[in-house]
């Protein structure tokens, strides 16, 4: 299963689903991580965490642990 944090900087993918049913997953969905949406990993922070990605035209910073919940299929 491919998740967002497994992408390489610059790589694009399509969101398949967001796992979990708690506050974190609903926050992720509100920010636009919904099935069918295009997401691109931009870069990682100096210490490897968090990562910055582009979705719905805006830049979002996520920790790797949260990014693990976003299941994607790379393009």
């Amino acid at each position, binding site marked *: 299963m491919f998740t967002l944090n497994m992408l390489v900087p610059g790589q694009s993918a399509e969101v398949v689903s967001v796992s979990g049913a708690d506050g*974190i*997953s*609903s926050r992720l969905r*509100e920010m636009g991580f919904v099935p069918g949406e295009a997401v691109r990993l931009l870069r990682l922070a100096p210490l490897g*965490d*968090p990562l910055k990605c582009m979705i719905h035209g*805006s830049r*979002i910073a996520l920790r790797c642990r*949260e990014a693990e919940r976003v299941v994607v299929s790379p393009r």
Partner: protein
Amino acid sequence: MVQTTRRVVLVGNPNTGKSTLFNVLSGLSVRTGNYAGVTIEKKVGRLADAVFPVELIDLPGTYSLNPRSPDEFVAVQVLTGEAAHEAVPDLVVCVVNATLLRRNLFLVSQLRELGCPLLIAVNMMDAARSRGLTINCKQMAANLGVPVVAISASKREGIDQLRAAIHEQLAGASHAAPIRPFPRYFYATSERVAEQLSSEADVKLAAGTEVNRFLIERALLDAGGETERMIIKRSGERAKSIIESGRSELKQSLGELNDIECENRYAWSREMLVGVLSDEGRESHRVTDWLDSVLTHRVFGLAIFAGLMLLIFQCIYAWSSVPMDAIASIQGYLSSLVEGLLSPGILRSLIVDGIIAGVGGVLIFLPQIALLFLFLAILEDFGYMARAAFLVDRMMSLLGLSGKSFLPLMSSFACAVPGVMATRVIENPRDRLATIFVAPFMSCSARLPVYLLLITAFVPATAVIGGLVSLRGLVLLAMYFVGVIVAIPTAWLLKRTVLRGESSPLVLELPEYKWPDWRVIGIRVFDACKAFVIRAGTMIFAASIVIWAAGYLPGDHSRQRELQALIETSEPGLAQVAIWQAELQVESGRLLEGSILGRLGHIIEPAVKPLGWDWRIGVGAIASFPAREVIIATLGTVYSLGGDVDEESEGLMDALRSSTWPDGRPVYNVPVALSIMVFFALCAQCVSTLLVMKRETNSWRWPVFSFVYMTTLAYLGALLTYQIGMQF
């Protein structure tokens, strides 16, 4: 005829330029206050150029009306008319970002469901245009069923049209019916749950049925969210079981509720944008991409961050000397004016030694504080603050804090009171407590006068690192680091022991970089300075009088008055005058030692001697417990009353430099100055912060713990600094 005031509420995602629009619409009429029961800031203004009175309320930016904390719940409460028994707003203006329409419409769908009178303001049209994006607002209005106005708040475009549209809506234009984006089964179930709740659990949420329905729906959708918590708090466990059974029913028939909500809302959003956007393939903001590649560079990002912080401190020093000198001259002028008008006596002493010395001593640092607030405001408006949070998040999580702790802690460098209040955005209660506890260690602007006074007086103005960096700037930076360095193990220890548990997540939007809006920044800096001056004008004024009184009484001042009168009425340069001045100094010193303040100081002297302090510094430290800036006032009064400050001295700094122990040794040297600064860096000397802590944590445990912990740490730190410093 008095017209009723209409209430208009501004909502929108963060980073949509809502605050800029709010400022443009309300001019300088903004007041800040508090909502009852929560301490989130309430920003209310009056619509400028309005035909009838219109009150504008700016709500905090939010991505959805799904409240996960009391903080986010405020928005829901205001929109549903629950907040402090206020009515439902007359109009809701939702600000959306033209370049991020699809995501922004998520919130709009919730607002449309709520059924409140709505007006959409599509902001940042200039950014959209520069990206070749065209937006058909007429089509969007037709799709949505509500008026849509295109604006650019920063460029002041479309504001008149917006104002006209607001007036039109308020004057009674018809409002669209609420939408229902969910499948019918959902609404059937939620209505049934609502009935059950009102009959079996006696839940009365709100007057309007739409509002009621909306809140029940939120309670069903957000498991463990604030709405559910609020209902349970009001009606008990019976309500909880009703809600939970309703939820499981929905899950069985419709699937994961969160998925359902998002799918439905984004599907609706897509529908609404049919025929509205020119094309989907817009390019991202190139400048932002380029700047990010530098500022969040894997290797250089942190170095740039550190360098930027150092630069800010340097500038604060370099640019404030001229205004500071100006304020000092005004202070000197006022003192001599009063001395010329009044003859020596208790009133003159009160005014000159108490009020002017005390309050003036604090006000002189206004330029520095203004500069600090200015830099922080510029960085935030420019968009850099979010990047800074991104850069330091990893380090913060190692300590058990969240990246969201960064902004409250950063604000605490200006003042811990809003910093502690800003921790409300941290959802995880343990992270929040840890951040609140650590916030006072961030050297606030009230400590700045102490640092500046002692550094300027005792640290030489030499340049180090090849003449590029001033030693004074470095020492100032070092004092800030002392707080941070102590905060780190404190936070770590807390998270390992008392506050053990999972950390909260980080989901942070990094806005596009933009030119700072000078109007917004100006207002922010002005507000901060105003708060500082008011605090000086009230609390410090009061404290100065109390300290002056403690230093004046008891004692017979007649000989002192005689001498002062003699000196002032004689010609200067006479040998006799010098003898009188010497006697005056001795007499003043004797009176001070015999006063309440003096006696107190002598009692605690044995305790502070190992720190290198004499009784005067001890007294200053004690008097500063309510508010740290008071030490300047105290020292000013102590040295002024003690006769150490006369027309030739440069004020307090000179007085410090020439202060001696009874045996003639100078009191102040570099280790002593450092130990005083370390004490102030670490000590809990702010009643306002302790009170806010109590309010935010709902118990006295934390403020008391903070007070004891910090004061002990401060004493030990000062002790170590002095003892080690004296070895060199």
